[in-house]
């Protein structure tokens, strides 16, 4: 019995001593925390000697990088070693898209180093050319941090054309392109196809696209006129004829594609040919989701609401006053 008590006492004393030592060690480590990160391993050595577990090591170093960023955020706010850490992690796992994304945000927003942020993302694109998130982050850095919307528009166009971007990326890309006159670049591209393509169908598409560019410009001009009308009269025009009677536009423009201009319920002037074109594209996307649903569940969705509950990126009808018409028996959008 006495022997057992002695052992218990010895164990307790041992734990008391180790606890004391641990606390002391933690205190010293906390005092020298900035130096700790200096031992961040060299990526070339790591790459060769992780025994094939470079992806796991990248995960661990990423956690360390988050801790470092947090410490700097609440401390010196220098982020001196952030670039090196991110380079090491992305070299160990070049497909770690979230590190490129979050790392670029840390570099741009916290370290205020936009060049390093953009370079990191460009390296990410080299290894992951199919990920829209990376050009999207570059566009965001240009627009938000550098206030360079033209470059932002270019990178947003890349994001919209890469992989399967969500709807908001495509909308942003279109808005930025229209705002910065990139429509002329688009026009030049279609004219090139119209003149040089040997494919009659392609020439027909190019012809329509050039007319659509003109129609978009006409819509923009008339919407600017509507804004001037609103500034003068206090409300949006009820009809396009109101803009003509106020001499804000010279006359009702013609649509060579047979469509017409109208004012929607929000007071915006739109064109039916343009909307029909978008409608066709979105209907194809929507049919794709319906097919995906059928492949998964073995039946058509009972309604488009059921489809929306499963997929968040369901496209809306470009006519803002209309809903999609869905034939549940055939699984078709009308």
């Amino acid at each position, binding site marked *: 019995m006495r022997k057992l008590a002695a052992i218990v006492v010895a164990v307790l004393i041992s734990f008391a001593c180790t606890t004391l030592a641990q606390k002391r060690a933690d205190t010293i480590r906390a005092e020298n925390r900035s130096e700790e990160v200096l031992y961040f391993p060299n990526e070339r050595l790591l790459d060769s000697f992780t025994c094939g577990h470079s992806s796991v090591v*990248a995960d661990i170093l990423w956690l360390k990088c988050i801790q470092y960023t947090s410490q700097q955020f609440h401390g010196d706010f220098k982020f001196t070693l952030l670039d090196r850490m991110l380079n090491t992690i992305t070299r160990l796992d070049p497909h770690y898209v*979230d590190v490129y994304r979050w790392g670029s945000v840390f570099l741009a927003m916290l370290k205020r180093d936009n060049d390093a942020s953009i370079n990191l993302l460009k390296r990410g694109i080299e290894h992951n050319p199919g990920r829209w998130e990376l050009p999207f982050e570059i566009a965001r850095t240009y627009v938000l941090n550098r206030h360079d919307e033209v470059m932002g528009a270019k990178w947003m166009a890349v994001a919209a054309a890469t992989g399967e971007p969500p709807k908001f990326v495509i909308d942003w890309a279109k808005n930025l392109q229209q705002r910065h006159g990139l429509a002329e670049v688009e026009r030049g591209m279609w004219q090139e196809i119209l003149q040089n393509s040997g494919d009659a169908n392609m020439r027909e598409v190019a012809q329509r696209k050039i007319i659509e560019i003109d129609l978009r410009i006409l819509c923009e001009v008339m919407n600017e006129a509507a804004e001037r009308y609103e500034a003068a009269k206090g409300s949006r025009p009820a009809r396009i004829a109101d803009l003509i009677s106020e001499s804000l536009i010279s006359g009702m423009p013609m649509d060579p594609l047979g469509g017409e201009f109208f004012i929607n319920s929000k007071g915006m002037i739109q064109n039916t040919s343009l909307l029909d074109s978008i409608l066709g594209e979105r209907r194809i996307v929507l049919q794709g989701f319906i097919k995906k649903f059928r492949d998964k569940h073995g039946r058509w969705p009972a309604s488009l609401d059921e489809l929306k509950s499963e997929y968040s990126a369901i496209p809306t009808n470009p006519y803002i006053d209309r809903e999609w018409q869905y034939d549940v028996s055939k699984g078709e959008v009308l």
Partner: protein
Amino acid sequence: MRIIAVAQNTFREAVRDKVFYVLVFFGLATLVGSKALGWISIGQEIKIVKDFSLASVSVFGVLIAIFVGTSLIYKEIDKRTIYTIICRPMARYEFVLGKYLGMALLLGVTTAVLGIVAAAYVAILGGNVDATFFYALVLIYWELLMVTAFATLFSSLTSPILGAIIVFSIYVVGHATGILINLPEHFDNTASKTVLEFMYYIVPNFSNFNVRAEAANDVPVALGYVVWSMVYGAVYTGMLLLLAAVAFENKDV
């Protein structure tokens, strides 16, 4: 038939080994515990769980292959049970092959159990378990077969501890072969480059069997790559087993 009998016995014997259960337990614990690391990261929970799941299958499989594999033949000699076997009408190569196949079966069961648990765990957490994930598991098993072949060879040549150290060193070097071929420019047209390139094709290249990063990041892997890596592993393993059989044939037992 005699080979199968040895293989079955080896499998039964290895399954009774406590080391095996300890390693499988730690493998499963690492796999399940990986979710905790995902919590403290930013939005990469599934990626981290996939990484750690595949790493635990690989690491604990390699540990089983090394620690159980290097004592395969040595233990029979040490306990003198080998005499009851070699006095029977059985060729020595059959004994070596039977031992190896028993270990291969054990590792197959281990990889399958850990792999199925990993895939189910990732799927439950909402992750994508695609073909690349299964390619990664198949290639991990192929790597384990090659490591076991090394372990079998050294089991018939040396003691388990020394054998384990040698096989582990080969495993580490086999994952760093890239440095032999990706040389800086100043190595161009030098004898060193020729020698190092020669070594690149001689040293076992375990990085062939590593598509774990691709599996964790949902990056597709070509089936052709998987097939050629398996061909490489099968040929190398066959050569090692031949050497193991020759070594045991010449052993003074």
